[in-house]
């Protein structure tokens, strides 16, 4: 969004914020490294670990890509986020992410903003604690942007 200036600290690092472009049905992409794939004998196959979406605020933020930012640059989101090394990607709307956030007050809510990196101008971030259960819920509400053959994604419970 024109006019929005990323907040930065004295060292020039982007500080936690909500970016006005990342709202409602705008989508966030989470790249899925092959290192996140685990064996699940309960469900009979390979699945994505909850580690893919977990976050501990003491160790920074959860990285994502902004789909809108990518398309605004005229680029293809699939090509932007995948490579032989990062084989897959999930995509989820900001609205769904907000729906998982357990916070009851504004000051505790997850923050969803942009943290452009030298090699990824569409790099975004989610700040806040994301537990194993919330991570699995985020996975359930995500869709494959780039599926990984032979890997199952957790699916919504009760047909949500």
């Amino acid at each position: 969004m024109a006019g929005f200036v990323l907040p930065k600290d004295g060292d020039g690092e982007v500080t936690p914020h909500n970016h006005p472009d990342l709202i409602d049905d705008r989508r966030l992409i989470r790249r899925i490294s092959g290192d996140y794939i685990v064996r699940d004998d309960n469900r009979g196959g390979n699945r994505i670990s909850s580690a893919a979406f977990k976050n501990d605020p003491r160790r920074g933020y959860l990285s994502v890509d902004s789909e809108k930012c990518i398309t605004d640059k005229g680029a293809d989101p699939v090509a932007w986020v995948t490579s032989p090394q990062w084989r897959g990607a999930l995509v989820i709307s900001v609205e769904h992410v907000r729906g998982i956030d357990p916070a009851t007050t504004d000051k505790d809510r997850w923050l969803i903003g942009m943290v452009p990196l030298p090699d990824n101008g569409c790099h975004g971030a989610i700040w806040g604690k994301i537990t194993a259960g919330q991570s699995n819920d985020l996975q359930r509400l995500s869709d494959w942007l780039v599926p990984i053959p032979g890997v199952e994604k957790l699916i919504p419970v009760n047909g949500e």
Partner: protein
Amino acid sequence: MSLQELRYAEHSPTEWNVGFDWSADHSNTTIGSGAPARAAPIRMPLRSGWQAQVEAKLAKLTLLQRGWDGYDAAPPSVLVTAFAMSVLNSVMKPATPAPSIVPTHGGGVQLEWHVGGLDVELMIYRPFEAELSVEFSDGQPAVEERPLTTSFDSLGEVLEKLA
């Protein structure tokens, strides 16, 4: 960094209580070549099936490059992987299935078992800082991110069901 250095780098010896004997060589070898002439060689117990698998995986994870996740994640440190191995040595039985092990974007590792109707996850952020989550298929209340630091008995109790 040696394991001994790790021990002192992270915590004092009195805080170490995860049951791993740092002074022992846990490889499947006979030792004693440096012992007095009359001393009988000490035979270490055979390693469990899961140990070689886990050691290989942990070693592989430390070789990850920064940005392994497609963003800017650091690889797990040797301190973290050594701690993970020590925890497993303290709670695993020979017949316990090996966990899946994934790196985390914060530089830790997560150990996971999805078998026997249990979903068990131990997130290790750094040595002596971990969280246990367990979901049961039989309707028992889930354990959601129970902090574990020096005692991993609760993980051992859960894994008993899988051995």
